[in-house]
Each structure stands twice: as structure tokens, then as C-alpha cells.
């Protein structure tokens, strides 16, 4: 299997300054360090990207001016246009416009299914790099 594979992921050019909407059952914010945790049916939506998970931890930049990254845990599902990817964990950085997925990642596109250990989705140019035991299953329609 190829060491790394780059595939198209999603169709629209993703402008990473689009507003991010996060909905969940509950949210807890620690007053000391300001860290926030969304718990229960968490859905993160930005433009065409939609990510769902059981729990999402939010981390800010040092000066608390922006969200540095969101770590989603618990059957993470990432959907962009026709393409979907699932994994155990995902790190989404809105500023950098990337989603890194870990833990038996499975990408499902119309005709192909690709499994790998890790995947990095670049939202700005609709590509996804897959690393580690990449396995592609092609189904002929």
C-alpha cells in the first residue's frame, strides 16, 4: 500500500474565515484556564464541512484571541460535500483550515473507500493526505 496518498476531499473552495457553528447538548467552561468542552452530539459546521463527535475540547491561542484548535473525540465523522471520513479522534484548526484525523480513519467517496491510520484534510484546497497503512478499495459501479 502506498505510504501516503493525496485525494480530493470535498468540492467547494473552503474559505477558513467562514463562521464556525458548534452545537451540542452541553458545554463547560473552566474559569481558570478558559478551556471549554462541548459534550453530547457535538456538531461543528463551517461552510461545506460538517463534523460530528461525542466530545469536543476547545483550545485557544495564548492571548485567548482566537480558537487554536478543537479536538474531537468519540466516533468522529467528517462530511464535506459527497465525501465522508470517520475516525476515533480529529484535530480541527479553524485558523489553519486543516482537520487531522487519527485512529483507523476510513474515507468513503462515491466509488472508493480508503482506510489509513492518519489523515490530514486541507479545507482550503480540498485535498486530504492519508498516511500509514493506506488501503484503497475500489468498487466498480
Amino acid at each position: 500500500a502506498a505510504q501516503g496518498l493525496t485525494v480530493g476531499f470535498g468540492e467547494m473552495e473552503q474559505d477558513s474565515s467562514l463562521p464556525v457553528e458548534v452545537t451540542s447538548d452541553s458545554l463547560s467552561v473552566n474559569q481558570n484556564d478558559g478551556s471549554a468542552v462541548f459534550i453530547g452530539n457535538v456538531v461543528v459546521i463551517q461552510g461545506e464541512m460538517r463534523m460530528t463527535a461525542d466530545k469536543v475540547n476547545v483550545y485557544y491561542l495564548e492571548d485567548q484571541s482566537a480558537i487554536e484548535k478543537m479536538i474531537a473525540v468519540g466516533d468522529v465523522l467528517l462530511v464535506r460535500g459527497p465525501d465522508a471520513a470517520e475516525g476515533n479522534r480529529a484535530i480541527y484548526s479553524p485558523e489553519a483550515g486543516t482537520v487531522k484525523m487519527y485512529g483507523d480513519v476510513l474515507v468513503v467517496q462515491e466509488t472508493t473507500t480508503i482506510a489509513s491510520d492518519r489523515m490530514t484534510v486541507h479545507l482550503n484546497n480540498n485535498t486530504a493526505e492519508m498516511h500509514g497503512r493506506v488501503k484503497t478499495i475500489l468498487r466498480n459501479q
Partner: protein
Amino acid sequence: MASGNTYSQVVAFLKVVLPLIALGILATLFLVPREVDLEAAIPFAEVELEKRLRDQQVTAASFSTKTSSGHLVAVTASTAHPDFEDPTRTVATDLKARIDLANGQTINVVSDDGEMDSTFKEVVLTNNVQFVTSSGITMDTHEMTMSIDEVRAESSGEVVAYTQFGRLNAGRMAVRPAGNDDDIYLFFTNGVRLIYTPQKTTGDQ
């Protein structure tokens, strides 16, 4: 010789009489009343005086405690008076509550009205309740119950919060210590919706 000592007789006589006169003047000094008009000195109008007496109104009421874990809670109100229906409850207007957390952060809560029961354990803030934390979160809700002797508050309904990570709507909000080191947490429950707008991206590959 008799005439020689008239001077000393007069002195001896005066030595007795003069102190008596002085004592007399001193004694009567307090009896001479100075006309002091007490009535004008009180700045309250007659009708307001009755109102105050009737409903025992207190102005600028304030109430502060220190919780067991070292946080300071201070509540002030512009007016406070017993509830007419149930005198054990105290009704107050224009409330300001300030919580100084042990870690130096502060929480300020203001509301138009407030009500406290006789135990003075908690105050129910109503109408335009605004909850501001020094960590940059401002929250508006209609009604919130706030405990006095510990850092604990809970909104009874919808909450809109403006935070550094965006605008947030939630069904309920609660503030209380949690976790193993008793940090103060804000819990938003009953459905949460956050809208965060990233600043212009810096790391554009």
C-alpha cells in the same frame, strides 16, 4: 489691730463667696435652652417618613460574605424592604453582586430586581440580569438564582453569552466549583449553540 485685718477679712469672705457664685453660674448654664429646631434638621418629608416606617425600607442595603473556599461575595441594592405578602422575604431593587474569586478573577452580576428569603442563603435576581466575568464572558438572562455563601448560580431559563470564542445561546447556565481542584466552571446545558467567526486567517498555506 482689729482694723488692720479688715483686708484679710474681706479676702477670706471673697474666697468663699466667689467660688459659690461660679458654681451657681455653671449649674444654671445647661438650663438655659437654646432654641434648636429639631424638626427642620431631618431631611425626610412627612409622607416619606410614614412610608419608610410602614414598610421598613432600607436604602443602599449591602450584604457580603466570604465562602469556605476563600471567595468573597458582596451584594448591594439601592433599596430593600420586606415583601408585603410574605414579610420573611426581602425584596430589593437595582442589585449589584460582585464575586472576587480566590484566583483573582471577578464576576459581576447586575439586575433590576431581586428577592431573598429569610435564610439569606441565596438571592433570586430578575429582569435584565447581566453576568460578566473578568475572563471576558458577558451573559444576559431573565432570571438567575445566586447563592450567597458559596460561588453557585443558576439561570432559570435561556441564556445568551458573548465570549471571546463567539456568541453562545444555551437553554440553561450554571456556575459552580467542579473538578478535583474545585475550579469554578460555567456549565451551559439544555442545548448549546455557539457561532465563532475566525479572525483573518494567518496560516494560509
